[in-house]
């Protein structure tokens, strides 16, 4: 029995495993190899000189890295505060309304990200939904609300809300009601229950939600381009520019490796800590 389980498991893992090795790991290794090549070559048949990394370090690309990480961090923190009460409601209070909320939120995920962001452009631009009607009703217009850093963070919060909300709700569902009841009976205040019981016990969900949000937001590009205009340039955009307009594959590859190292490092650390069998409900 066990031997058959072992064989079948390995056999069934094969298609996806081979596919990901060929179409995910191999391209990443290729990027890593390209990042060591001299500037502006298009094949690997050159002597590696690591000059692209020197360019990354000396040409001020760290600013883009900082913008990406800083805005991702801000979005993660804001989303945690916004999503906590809602996740609490979904896990402990709502009952049937939870299902409505879940379907409503999941449906937005199936709408192309650029259509939703374009909708915000139409809403917030000068002559858009908000400014247009304010001008119509009060007679006094104002400049559009777009093209600054806070609006990019707003866009990140908007797009990645589901990725914080669902893991948080899952985490809060794991807090036993008995523990909260016991703390309450012993005279704990609402604040103490939150700090001493709910936050620590919901930690796996908090961790997964925050990591997911941070990692996705750090690699995001559309929010900055559509909502931010030229306000800042993020690292993912630098990668794209180096590959396309710059025609400098080694530089693009080196920038990509920086992003991959940060995002991949955090992701591997987080995934390593998570017990997937337990979180996905193995019996």
């Amino acid at each position, binding site marked *: 029995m*066990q031997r058959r389980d072992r*064989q079948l*498991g*390995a*056999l*069934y*893992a094969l*298609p*996806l*495993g081979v596919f*990901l090795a060929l*179409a*995910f790991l191999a*391209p990443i290794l*290729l*990027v890593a190899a390209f990042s060591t090549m001299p500037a502006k070559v298009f094949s690997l048949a050159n002597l590696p000189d690591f000059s692209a990394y020197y360019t990354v370090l000396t040409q001020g690309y760290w600013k883009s890295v900082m913008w990406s990480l800083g805005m991702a961090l801000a979005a993660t923190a804001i989303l945690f505060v*916004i999503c906590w*009460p*809602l996740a609490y*409601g*979904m896990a402990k*209070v*709502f009952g049937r309304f939870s299902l409505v*909320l879940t379907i409503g*939120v999941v449906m*937005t995920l*199936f709408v*192309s*990200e*650029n259509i939703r962001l*374009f*909708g915000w452009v*139409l809403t917030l631009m000068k*002559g*858009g*939904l908000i*400014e*247009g*009607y304010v001008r*119509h009703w009060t007679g006094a217009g104002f400049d559009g609300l777009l093209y600054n850093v806070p609006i990019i963070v707003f866009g990140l919060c*908007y797009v990645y809300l589901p990725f914080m909300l669902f893991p948080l709700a899952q985490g809060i569902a794991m807090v036993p009601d008995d523990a*909260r009841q016991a703390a*309450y*009976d012993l005279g704990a205040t609402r604040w103490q229950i939150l700090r001493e019981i709910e936050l620590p016990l919901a930690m796996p969900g908090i961790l997964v939600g925050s990591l997911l949000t941070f*990692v996705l937001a750090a*690699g995001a*590009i*559309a929010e900055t*381009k*559509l909502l931010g205009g030229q306000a800042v340039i993020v690292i993912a955009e630098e*990668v*794209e520019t180096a*590959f396309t307009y710059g025609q400098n594959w080694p530089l693009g590859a080196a920038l990509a490796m920086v992003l991959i190292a940060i*995002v991949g490092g955090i992701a*591997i650390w987080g*995934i390593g800590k998570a017990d*997937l069998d337990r979180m*996905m*409900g193995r*019996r």
Partner: protein
Amino acid sequence: MKTSRFAAWALVAYGCLILAFLYVPLVSVGLASISKARYLSFPIRRYSYDWYGEALASDTVRDLLVISLKVAGIVTVVSMVIGFLGALAFARYSWRFRKTYQKLILLPIFFPQTVLGLALLMWFNTLGVVPSWKTAVIAHLVWIAPIATLVISIRAYSFDPALEEAARDMGASTWDTLREVTIPLLMPGVVSAGLFAFLLSWGNFPLSLFTTGADSTLPEWLYAKMVAGYSPLVPTVGILTVCTSAVLLAVGLTAAWIFKRARAARVS
């Protein structure tokens, strides 16, 4: 310690508010799509549905639709098959590298999609493959096949291994067990994974951007028109793609509901 009635109502109100917030941009796009003016500006003065007629009659839109459908259709079928097998390895059988395998599968989901698209473009170039909608299928699968695997795994976790063993004890071969026990039991998971796969591929932009070559999908065309040379067809085509997803999702949810009702009726 029960949540007070007032607090519960406040939370529901908050939930409605967030839900409304999530749909604000779609309302704007919807309003824009029925504005008569060629250059959009709110408040809208004259409404018209002409842009819808124009969009539906346009050859460009039809070509985009065909390519998007081809990509999403193939991605759906392949994800269902790979994801079904992958989920059994993920959740059902204990084998040596299961934990490593589980973690490897999650990595593509976390990966920045634009960078993945560029990496794949370099990879296809090195292999001498000319990018077209077919390479976009590969790119979508790198991201969507793992998600399909996860969706089916949730179902596979609640699966009682004793059922398979019973079938085998009664003399069923591995293939018979798979066909008669495992596949029917996991079917609801496979179908929802298929729905997810289709919808995610249909709406995906960052993976398509670098991997479709001369072909173009609907989200790609929309993006190109958004950043350069606004066309009044953008909101219209945007709303049409959203409606397609909504209809598909509604059909899926209704089918699931009917299936559940029918089974409940059979059991009782």
